[in-house]
């Protein structure tokens, strides 16, 4: 009975993103004064797909948290509307990415049933994550200021979007296994607790990777995400604040060293501290982003009536500012609230999970998602230094879309394990 009610809620909620998508595409078409039947057809097909995913999940017998997919689909619909409004030529590609993401979600939800047994292969996950990152570090190509792209023939990939998931998986397994060592087998230096070397090793490894990403790939955002997530997971497993202090200190020191050594990292910090010192140079993007948000005000200019294309890279990293300009605080605030709700749901799933591994895995994925929102929304609003990460489900791009849907599929599976046991 409860499961039926859940299904009813999910299927009703999944009608929303489709309606929003059609309304949004219609509004943009009217503003441009041109209606493209192919685009409308794709939008209608996507609307059907959102609902179809629900029935596919039922068909393969998966019954997870009913809010995850609707929230992600609404965000994806908003992303599709804005990609169409900002770069109409990329709309069809973005639609393909969303379909790929939905399929990835179903697959992740299906295989995620056995997530418990994955803990045994933790070193494989760790190695895969590491290799993905190393390959990117060695053969990465710079696109849009970040040297974190891999180009294989016609395919452009951002491997770090997938590496994140493998690293979280590895850490969840590693930490749940060595939880007691971390919590109790410690030494003290002054007031701060230092863990045993065996525990310290993987943490140092992640720190090393983060620094490498910073130095070679200029990817401050990804480095912060990796290290921040690892650190928060370490705290989840150990409950020791001193690890957060150690980790934070190490990251700050490393970041400061990179700041001092590599001139290309410097402008990002400097422009955050004072963007008005060079509003037409290094701080151009942040200043333009603030103009967009400010011009949007509470109600926004209306879809198609703003000038978000004044911001470079607006359809990827700065899509949030475009939403803020044309939909106002009503739109940008709603998007941020959707993310807060989503992160809350994932944390809740962690809190009802049955095994330590599942708790830390779901908690880690929640932390990863939450930090990513903080980094990108905080970056484009000058809340913190701007770093190039995508707005999950919304920004244009395949790697991020598929990667984040896989993350959500895993969480969906974890929610089911927790619920069915209870």
């Amino acid at each position: 009975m409860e499961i039926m009610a859940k299904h009813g809620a999910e299927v009703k909620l999944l009608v929303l993103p489709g309606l929003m998508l059609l309304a949004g595409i219609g509004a943009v078409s009217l503003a441009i004064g041109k209606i493209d039947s192919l685009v409308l057809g794709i939008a209608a097909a996507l609307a059907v797909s959102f609902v179809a995913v629900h029935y596919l999940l039922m068909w393969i017998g998966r019954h997870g948290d009913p809010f995850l997919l609707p929230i992600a689909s609404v965000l994806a619909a908003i992303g599709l509307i804005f990609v169409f409004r900002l770069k109409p030529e990329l709309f069809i590609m973005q639609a393909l990415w969303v379909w790929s993401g939905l399929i990835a979600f179903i697959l992740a939800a299906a295989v995620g049933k056995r997530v418990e047994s994955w803990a045994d292969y933790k070193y494989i996950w760790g190695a895969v994550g590491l290799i993905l990152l190393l390959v990117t570090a060695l053969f990465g190509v710079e696109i849009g200021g970040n040297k974190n792209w891999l180009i294989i023939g016609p395919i452009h990939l951002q491997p770090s979007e997938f590496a994140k998931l493998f690293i979280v998986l590895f850490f969840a397994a590693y930490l749940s296994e060595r939880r007691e060592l971390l919590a109790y087998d410690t030494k003290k230096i002054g007031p701060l607790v230092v863990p045993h070397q065996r525990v310290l090793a993987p943490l140092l490894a992640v720190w090393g990777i983060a620094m490498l990403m910073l130095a070679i790939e200029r990817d401050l955002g990804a480095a912060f995400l990796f290290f921040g997530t690892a650190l928060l997971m370490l705290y989840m497993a150990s409950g020791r604040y001193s690890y957060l202090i150690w980790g934070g200190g190490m990251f700050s020191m490393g970041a400061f060293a990179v700041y001092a050594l590599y001139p290309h990292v410097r402008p990002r910090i400097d422009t955050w501290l004072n963007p008005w010192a060079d509003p037409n140079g290094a701080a151009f993007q942040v200043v333009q982003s603030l103009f967009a948000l400010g011009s949007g005000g509470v109600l926004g200019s209306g879809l198609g009536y703003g000038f978000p294309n004044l911001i470079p890279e607006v359809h990827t990293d700065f899509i949030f500012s475009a939403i803020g300009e044309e939909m106002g605080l009503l739109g940008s605030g709603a998007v941020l609230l959707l993310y807060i709700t989503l992160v809350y749901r994932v944390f809740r799933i962690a809190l009802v999970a049955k095994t330590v591994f599942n708790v830390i895995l779901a908690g880690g994925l929640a932390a990863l998602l939450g930090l990513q929102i903080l980094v990108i929304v905080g970056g484009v609003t000058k809340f913190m230094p701007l770093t190039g990460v995508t707005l999950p489900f919304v920004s244009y791009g395949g790697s991020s879309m598929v990667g984040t849907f896989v993350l959500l599929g895993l969480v969906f599976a974890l929610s089911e394990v927790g619920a069915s046991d209870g």
Partner: protein
Amino acid sequence: MQAMADEVKKNVRRIALGLLGVLVILFGYLSYIQVIEGEALAANSLNRRSAQSGMQIERGKILDRNGKVLAFSERQPDGQYVRRYPYGAVLAHVVGYSNSSYGNTGIESRFNRDLSGIKNPWRVLGPLANLWNSKAGNNVVTTIDAELQTIAYRALGNRRGAVVALNPKTGAILAMVSKPSFNPEDVDTEWKILVNDPESRLLNRAVQGLYPPGSTLKVMVAEAALREKVTDTKQLFTCEGTWKIGKDYELSESHHQAHGKVNLEDALAVSCNITFGKLTVQLGPKRFAEAFTRFGFDRPTGLEIGDAPSELPDFNRLSEGELAQTGIGQGSLLVTPLRMAMIAAAMANQGNIMTPYLVTEINAPDGSQMETYSGKLLLTATSPELAQIVSKMMVSVVDRGTGSAAGLGRGSVAGKTGTAENPHGEPHAWFIGFAPVDNPQIAVAVILENSGYGGAEAAPVARQIFAGALR
């Protein structure tokens, strides 16, 4: 196992609270940026949004009094509009420029709302504000006579200076020239040169340039002396070429020649410094200051595009010598050419000064009239009788005095020359006046920076303008 999981969950709960807390703070910060900081960010001069939206609709035309086009928008193949200025540098300072990077000036700035068609920039309306936007802006009809403007522009030649010509009966500006000038279409390409220009080409000297008025101020001093009964039209003054005031001051004539025995009319005609210096001292600081107030020097002119306020000395603190100096338009007193044109206009219009204005009509794209403006009285400076007397003396200046080069036949032009000493080199050459005397149609002020004598340099320019206006 369960106990272990519970302990881990306690930690996860703390992380969840912390992370969600930070995201909620971020939400508050976002609201602050979009709502409280929003107004300032939207209005920031580097924010190109209002200029961009302006380029998407056809900005209204700016027209002269005879319907000649002074500014219009031309549609480009990409659908955006580019602003064109058929008169280029001739009208650059009055019409101004409308530029997406550097903003608007002149009429383009003052009447931007009408020209742009964006009538309701109310942010609180959000998307609804789009309902008020039209496809084309309104046309602005000015008081300028483009032909007269061109004549005045050419008459100045390559010299630095300004001309203001207005209808003394209405205050309508007929011509307003400032030199050197610039082409408003070249603002994008020449911006760096223009803003760093040592000759300040962007400055509208006619309303923003501050100069010592020199002897043109004697027109006002003559009026004040008669009004306050310090003298009359018959009294004879003796000019010996120099006059020692106190210990430190000595007033002298420009050519060091003595004018001998002169009455007030003769003194104005030959521009006798000593007579007017003495009259100013006799007026004293209080009554002298009152004259400036009567002629409106201490209040805004009300011109749409704005003008620089006069710099008046603190009259009570002037020594006798300084008072005499100020009476002949030297010293610390600084005024705009527009102000001096308004003094001539007062004499031409029975002592009444009209508010100077540049725009008569605002018309919708379909031609229907939306707003009209006409002459308004700014103030009454003096009586019709006194204005008549001073005007007659100004006719003598042109008929037999220093202003002969401005004449168009006996008794037709009234005027006064000025030669203003200044710290930047050669004196500034001035001429103010009006014509025709029996039914004044035009009052002018001409200034040529560092060009020499007003009678030799500025008066001929004024003559060309009078001839052009009465053609």
